[in-house]
């Protein structure tokens, strides 16, 4: 038995070393960092312990801008992408011909490099001295004036960020919802057909309750994912997100850590802890709401 014990731990050792060094230790460390005031990177010393980093971060206009941007992004993209994915999956599951082709096409954005394709979106929306760009061409068909979506007004930039985010997150949602729809027991649908139930009623009384756990899962992961948005914004607006006024909370953390405005791991840690608290709170609220509305069979 003693030999068995040692062998088990031996097999587990690599995983324990990696996780300990790069996941568990950092987790503890980031909490300590966030409480150490006036930390100096070069001498590895700090002035005192307290909530000073948090109060600095919460008063930093860049952080407040980042929080605002992130919340707007979350509130717009999560409902839009989930709703749209639900519609598309319903459409997909009611056709037979070409279904696999559509599924494959819809999944493509998942396997692309966020930075690379973001560059394409930037070019589609960008207005340059040589051309107004394709998005503005489409706008002009409807008689709307050219707008600079990349360096222009705030709402235009936010719109592009939302569009790109939705485009990026759709494949995952469509995939998950289609497989959820496929796993609904067809007996329910046959029973409804015999009763002559109208389509809308079938949807609200059978389909929606049956897939509600999946929808709820997507909403939660969607919230978490959108709160961590960063590389999409970098792809569209460049590395200096503060200057563009489009920074996100995660972006703020990294900017504090590294780059031209970096070198403040304490502030970065405090911001990361705040982000974690926000995500945790939202997830708990989601869980409470779901108790009432989600049907678990």
């Amino acid at each position, binding site marked *: 038995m003693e030999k068995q014990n040692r*062998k*088990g731990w031996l*097999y*587990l050792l*690599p*995983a324990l070393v*990696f*996780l300990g*060094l*790069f*996941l568990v230790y*950092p987790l503890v*460390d*980031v909490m300590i960092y966030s409480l150490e005031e006036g930390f100096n990177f070069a001498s590895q010393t700090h002035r005192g312990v307290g909530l000073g980093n948090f109060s600095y971060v919460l008063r930093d206009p860049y952080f407040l801008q980042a929080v605002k941007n992130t919340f707007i992004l979350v509130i717009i993209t999560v409902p839009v992408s989930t709703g749209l994915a639900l519609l598309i999956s319903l*459409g997909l599951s009611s056709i037979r011909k*070409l279904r696999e082709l559509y599924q*494959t096409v*819809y*999944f*493509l*954005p998942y*396997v692309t*490099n*966020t*930075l*690379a*394709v973001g*560059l*394409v979106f930037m*070019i*589609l929306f960008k207005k340059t001295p*040589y*051309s*107004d*760009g*394709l998005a503005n*061409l489409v706008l002009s068909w409807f008689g709307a004036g050219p707008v600079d979506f990349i360096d222009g007004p705030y709402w235009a930039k936010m719109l592009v960020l939302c569009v790109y985010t939705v*485009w*990026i*997150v759709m494949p*995952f949602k469509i*995939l998950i919802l289609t*497989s959820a729809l496929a796993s609904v027991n067809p007996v329910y649908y046959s029973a409804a057909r015999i009763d002559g139930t109208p389509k809308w009623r079938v949807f609200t009384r059978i389909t929606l309750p049956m897939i509600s756990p999946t929808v709820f899962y997507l909403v939660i*992961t969607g919230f*978490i*994912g959108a709160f961590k948005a960063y*590389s999409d914004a*970098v792809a569209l607006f*460049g*590395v200096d997100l503060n200057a563009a006024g489009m920074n996100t909370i995660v972006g703020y*953390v*990294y900017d504090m*850590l*590294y780059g031209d405005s970096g070198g403040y*791991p304490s502030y970065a*840690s405090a911001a*990361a802890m705040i*982000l*974690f608290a926000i*995500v945790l709170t939202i997830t708990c609220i989601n869980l409470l709401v779901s108790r009432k509305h989600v049907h678990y069979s």
Partner: protein
Amino acid sequence: MDFERIERSARLRKRVGTGVLYALLTVWAVIVLFPFYWMLLTSVKSYGAYNSEWVPKLYTTAPTLENYGTAFTAVPLGGYFVNTILFTLGTTALMLVVTVLAAFAFSRLRFRGRDLVFTGFLALMMIPGELVVITNFVTITNWDLRNTFLGLILPSVTSVFYIYLLRENFAQVPDELYYAAKVDGTSDLKYLFKVMIPICRPTIITVTILKVIECWNSYVWPRLITDDQAYFLVSNGIQEIRENGFGRENIPAMMAAVVVISAPLIVLFLVFRRKIMAGVARGGTKG
């Protein structure tokens, strides 16, 4: 009111409905595919032709491949590529070793504290990566591993989720096989390699592909840990090209670089389509 007319109109209505449905699905397919089309199209337009189009054209009559030449000569795109391949191979290989051993320990070996540790692992799945990046950055900097492959790879290796996924699969292999092997005097390691891994190959392939995708797209960690171009991965390379490359104006060359960077993953996806989609459906999330 004759029966036949009602039936015919019902059939017509159904056919129109199906038509509308296909049209709407096609609209979304076009929205998904258009950016890909646009990057391909722009990458084969010549620099002069692209910049003279005040109204962007949806096609080109004189495609050229010169942008691809520029993409590889004006910026070290080939170097970024090699770096990314090395990073992906190193990370994925290490991840596989760590994951397989841990999953085997959790699913087959019996030792004190196993279930407790496994619960701990599950709890770790909830930790967002953003939270630990800060300390990892400091750790790697203190170890003097910035701008090295080791610094890039080490913190990217572990994925608790893959250990969990593989453990679930290993646990499905019937115990009888293990006892039979034990009676024959097979060692645990040999059993793992000769029985478990071959049986669970589909899951191992899925995990590998998901990790490759993750590595190919990783941006945040490489950006923090490298500022020497010689160690840039493709994501950082793209960002570098966006900020400084090609004089910022040579959009066709930029798009050629984007095509080159996107192509390997798309090919991988088309080959392993079912496996990737099944793997992601089982619980992968982006990044």
